C-alpha cells in the first residue's frame, strides 16, 4: 500500500480527450484511486489523438506508462492490475518509457519544446506551471534585461511568426517598440480557423501560462500595458482555462499592475470571436476586437504602427508567443540550434486525414514531409497509396508524392506552391479526388469570404461554380484556363491575405494534378471514384454468385437478378451511393 501511494496518474483532458470519453474515465478513476490515496491529475493533450482517451501512470521509480483507448470501462483494469498488482496492462499500452511499443516512432522523431509540458502539467494550476520553471523567463526579462535586450534576444533566436506567413518575430516586436504612441497593445491571435487545425487549441488547453508568459514578455519589450487574446468562442475549454490562468497570473503578480514589483503594468483580457474565419486575418481581428464588423482593412498602416484603436499593436499567434518563454529559458543561441538556416526552432503540426496516427506532433524545422507522414504518422491508413498532403489549410497548397522529401521550412514550402500556414497537415490517399479536394477548400473560403473586395467576393464564387461544374461532369473546354486566369487575378488583386491565398488549393492542385482536372472534363472520369456523376458501378458476371445482398441493400432498387444468377445494375436508376460496392463480399462490383 505504501508503494501504491506514490504512483501518479494523469488523464489527458483536452477537448480531444474529452471527445473520446476521457472525462468519464477520469470520473471512474477518482473513487477507484481514492482507495489507494491517489488523486488523478488533469492534464492537456498528449498528442496521440489516435489513441484517446489517454491515461498515464508514473511509477514510484519514475517510469512512465501511457495507456491508450482507456474508456471508462477499462479504468478498473489499470488500477487493479498496474497500481495494485504492479503489472503494466500490456494490451492498453500506447507508450512506455522503459519498453518498446508500436508508437515509439510517433515520439522519437519529435522535438518537443513547446509541447514539452503539454500533457504533463495541470493547465488549471499555476503551481503546476511554476514547478516546471514557469515564469522564470518573464522574471529574467523584466528583472535583468532592457526592452531592447529582450527584442535583440528574440531577433537572435530567429523565431518567425507561426501563424502562416513567417514574418520575423523580433523585427515585428522592434517595429512596435519603435512606433510612437501614448498607448500600445499586445494582441494574440487565437482564432484558429483552418479546418483540421488544433495546434493552438492544444496549447491553450494544455499550457495556457506559456502563452500568457510569452505575451507578458512581449508587452514588456514593446511597452504595452494592455493586451487581448482573441480566441474563438468554439473553444470553450480553452477560454475557461485561459480565464483561470489569467486570474492566477494576476494573483501571483505575473500580470496586472506592478508586475514583479516593478512599474511594468500589463492587463490581459479575453475577447471571444464569433467564429468568422476572416477574423483570423489580423486587421479583421483588430476590427472585431473594436466591436466593428470583422473585415480586413488595407495595410499599410500595419498594426505595429496603427493597430487596435489606431494605437501601435503587436499581434502574434498562440504558438509564436508560446515559443518565447523557451527562448529565454534556453537562451537564443541554444534555441536556434534547432531548425534550418532561415527557419529556426520547431513547428507543431496537426496530422489529420488518411494517416494512421492522427494527432499533434512537434518537429524540428527542416524535417522532411516523409518523416512526418511515415515515421511519426505511421504512414497511410490501410496502407493505401499516398497521393498528396495539403499543408497550410485552405490558404495553403497541396504537395504530391514527388515532394515528400521536401524540407519542411517556410521558404521551401512557399517555393513548392504551398505554405507553412498555421500547421494543419491533411494527408490524402488514392481515394481522394484532387478536384473534389479543391472544391472542398473553395467551398470553405467562399463561404468565409467577408465580401469586402471584389476579387474574393465574386471571384471565389465563380471559381467554386466552375469546380462544381467539373465535379458534376459538366466541365467545359477552357475551364482549366479560366480557373488559372481567375485564380491568378484573385491572387494578384485581392485585399487581404485570405483572398490572395484563396485560389491556392486550386492553383496547386492544377500544378501537380492537372491531369485529374483534364480527365474530369475531357474523359468524364474521376480516378478516385469520388465524383458521383462521373462514376458507374458494374457487376462482373463471373464473380457474382447471386447472393442478392446488393439488390436487397440498394436504396433505389436499381439491381435486379435471379437468386444464384449474376445480377445487373440499371445505370439509369443507380444513384451511385456505393452501398452495393461495400456490401458485396465477392468483389464482384467494380467502379469505373
Amino acid at each position, binding site marked *: 500500500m505504501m508503494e501504491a501511494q506514490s504512483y501518479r496518474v494523469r488523464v489527458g483532458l483536452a477537448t480531444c480527450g474529452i471527445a473520446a470519453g476521457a472525462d468519464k474515465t477520469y470520473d471512474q478513476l477518482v473513487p477507484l484511486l481514492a482507495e489507494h490515496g491517489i488523486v488523478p491529475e488533469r492534464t492537456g493533450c498528449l498528442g496521440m489523438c489516435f489513441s484517446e482517451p489517454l491515461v498515464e501512470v508514473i511509477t514510484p521509480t519514475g517510469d512512465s506508462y501511457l495507456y491508450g483507448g482507456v474508456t471508462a470501462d477499462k479504468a478498473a483494469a489499470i488500477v487493479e492490475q498496474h497500481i495494485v498488482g504492479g503489472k503494466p496492462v500490456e494490451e492498453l499500452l500506447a507508450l512506455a518509457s522503459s519498453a518498446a511499443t508500436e508508437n515509439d516512432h510517433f515520439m522519437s522523431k519529435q522535438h518537443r519544446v513547446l509541447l514539452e509540458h503539454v500533457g504533463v502539467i495541470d493547465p488549471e494550476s499555476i503551481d503546476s506551471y511554476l514547478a516546471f520553471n514557469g515564469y522564470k523567463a518573464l522574471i529574467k526579462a523584466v528583472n535583468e534585461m532592457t526592452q531592447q535586450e529582450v527584442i535583440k534576444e528574440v531577433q537572435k533566436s530567429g523565431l518567425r511568426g507561426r501563424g502562416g506567413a513567417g514574418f520575423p518575430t523580433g523585427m515585428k516586436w522592434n517595429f512596435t517598440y519603435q512606433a510612437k504612441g501614448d498607448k500600445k497593445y499586445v494582441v494574440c491571435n487565437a482564432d484558429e480557423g483552418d479546418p483540421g487545425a488544433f495546434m493552438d487549441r492544444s496549447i491553450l488547453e494544455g499550457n495556457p501560462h506559456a502563452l500568457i508568459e510569452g505575451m507578458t514578455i512581449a508587452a514588456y519589450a514593446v511597452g504595452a500595458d494592455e493586451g487581448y487574446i482573441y480566441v474563438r468562442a468554439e473553444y470553450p475549454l480553452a477560454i475557461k482555462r485561459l480565464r483561470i490562468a489569467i486570474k492566477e497570473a494576476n494573483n501571483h503578480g505575473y500580470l496586472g499592475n506592478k508586475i514583479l514589483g516593478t512599474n511594468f503594468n500589463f492587463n490581459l483580457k479575453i475577447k471571444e470571436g464569433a467564429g468568422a474565419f476572416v477574423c483570423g486575418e489580423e486587421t479583421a481581428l483588430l476590427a472585431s476586437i473594436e466591436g466593428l464588423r470583422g473585415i480586413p482593412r488595407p495595410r499599410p498602416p500595419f498594426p505595429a504602427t496603427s493597430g487596435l484603436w489606431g494605437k501601435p499593436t503587436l499581434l502574434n499567434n498562440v504558438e509564436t508567443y508560446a515559443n518565447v518563454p523557451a527562448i529565454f529559458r534556453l537562451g537564443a543561441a541554444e534555441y536556434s540550434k534547432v531548425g534550418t538556416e532561415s527557419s529556426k526552432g520547431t513547428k507543431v503540426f496537426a496530422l489529420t486525414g488518411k494517416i494512421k496516427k492522427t494527432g499533434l506532433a512537434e518537429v524540428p524545422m527542416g524535417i522532411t514531409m516523409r518523416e512526418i507522414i511515415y515515421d511519426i504518422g505511421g504512414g497511410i491508413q490501410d496502407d493505401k497509396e499516398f497521393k498528396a498532403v495539403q499543408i497550410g489549410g485552405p490558404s495553403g497548397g497541396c504537395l504530391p508524392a514527388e515532394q515528400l522529401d521536401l524540407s519542411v521550412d517556410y521558404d521551401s514550402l512557399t517555393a513548392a506552391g504551398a505554405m507553412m500556414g498555421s500547421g494543419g497537415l491533411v494527408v490524402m490517399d488514392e481515394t481522394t479526388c484532387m478536384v473534389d479536394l479543391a472544391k472542398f477548400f473553395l467551398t470553405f473560403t*467562399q463561404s468565409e469570404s467577408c465580401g469586402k*473586395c471584389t*476579387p474574393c*467576393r465574386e471571384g471565389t464564387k*465563380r471559381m467554386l461554380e466552375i469546380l462544381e461544374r467539373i465535379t458534376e461532369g459538366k466541365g467545359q473546354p477552357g475551364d482549366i484556363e479560366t480557373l488559372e486566369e481567375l485564380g491568378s487575378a484573385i491572387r494578384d*488583386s485581392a*485585399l487581404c491575405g485570405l483572398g490572395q491565398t484563396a485560389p491556392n488549393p486550386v492553383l496547386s492542385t492544377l500544378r501537380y494534378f492537372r491531369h485529374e482536372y483534364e480527365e474530369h472534363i475531357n474523359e468524364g472520369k474521376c480516378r478516385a471514384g469520388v465524383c458521383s456523376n462521373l462514376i458507374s458501378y458494374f457487376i462482373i458476371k463471373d464473380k457474382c454468385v447471386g447472393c442478392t445482398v446488393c439488390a436487397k441493400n440498394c436504396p433505389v432498387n436499381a439491381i435486379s437478378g435471379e437468386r444464384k444468377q449474376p445480377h445487373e445494375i440499371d445505370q439509369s436508376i443507380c444513384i451511385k451511393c456505393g452501398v452495393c460496392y461495400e456490401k458485396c463480399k465477392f468483389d464482384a462490383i467494380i467502379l469505373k
Partner: protein
Amino acid sequence: MSKVNITINGLALQVDANMTVLEAAQSAGIDIPTFCHDPELTKAGACRMCVVEVAGARNLPAACTTPVAEGMVVETETERVQKARKTILELIWADHPHDCLTCEKTGSCKLQDYSYRYDVKGSPYQGEVREIPFDDTNPFFFRDLNKCILCGKCVRKCHEINGAGAIDFMNRGFGTKVTTAFDDPIEESSCVFCGMCVDICPVGALTPKQGLNQGRPWEVDKVLTTCPYCGSGCTFYLHVRNDKIVGITPNFAGPMKGHLCVKGRFGWDFVDSPDRLQTPLIKKDGEFVEATWDEALELIATKFKEVGAQYGADAIAGLSSARTTNEENYLFQKLLRSLGTNNVDHCARL
C-alpha cells in the same frame, strides 16, 4: 511636407510623402480607375480596380491605399494590371443586370465607362445572380441592390460625413448587401435623406426619383447655382432639360465639398408647384382679380404717392427678403429710401 521621388509610367515625380500612389498619379494627371475611392472618405481598398504594378511587390497593390515611398517605381497600365482590372469588371458583370439601355445611370456609370475602357465584351462567368427586391418605398430615390457593386462609398458617406449611419453591410461574402439595420425600409431607419449616397453611387444602384426618364446626362444643361434654403450656401448644378429641372449634381469642387441635406438635394420641386403665382392680382371686393403688370404697378405707384403725400414718407414701410438676391435687396432698400423713409427691414431677426 517632405517630398519623395517616385516614377509613374516612366514619369519622374516629386510628390508629398503622405500621398498614396493614386493621389500621386492624379496629381500628375494620370487616371487610375476606381469605384470605391472618395478623397474625403476612409480608404477602403475594396473594389481593387486601382491595382497597379509596383516594382518589387509580389502582388498588385491597390493604388488608393498604397503610400508612396522614395524611389518607388509604378506602372499603371501594364498587361498584368489590365488583365486584373478586366477580370474584376467581368466578375462584376457576371452579377449585374444588363439593362443599360434603359438604366437611368447610362452615360454617367463608371461600370460602363471602365468596361468600355478595358474592352469588356461580356462575362465569361455564368452562375448565380442576386435577386434582391427593387426598393421604391421612400419618396426620394430608388434602391436597386442587384446593381450594387459593393464599393461601400454610400456606407462611408453616411457614417463619416452625414453621421446618420443608416446603412451598413449585411451578410457576408457573395451574400453581402448594403442595407439598413434589420433590413427595415429605409424611411423607417435613421436615414435623413441627404442624398449624398445617391450622388456618389458609381452605378445605378441608387438613383433619384426626380427626373426619372427625363434626360440622359448628355442631354441636360448643368447650371451652377446656390441653394435657396438655409444660410450655409451650398452650391450645386441644376440639370435642366426642356425648361424643367430634372436633377442636380452637387458642386464637389466647391467649398462645401458637395455635401447637401435633404432640402437642397431633393426639395427644389416647389419651383413647378401648380399653384405658382403667374399673373399680378388686384383685390377687388375681397377677391383677387387678375391684372396686367401695368395696372398693378400703376396702382401701387399711385397708392404709395398718395400715402407719402398725405401721411409723409415714414407712413410707408417695406419688408425686404432674406430669400431674394443681394441685387434685389439692394434695389428694395434703394426704392424705400428713395421714397424718403428708412422703414426697411427683413426677417433677419426671425
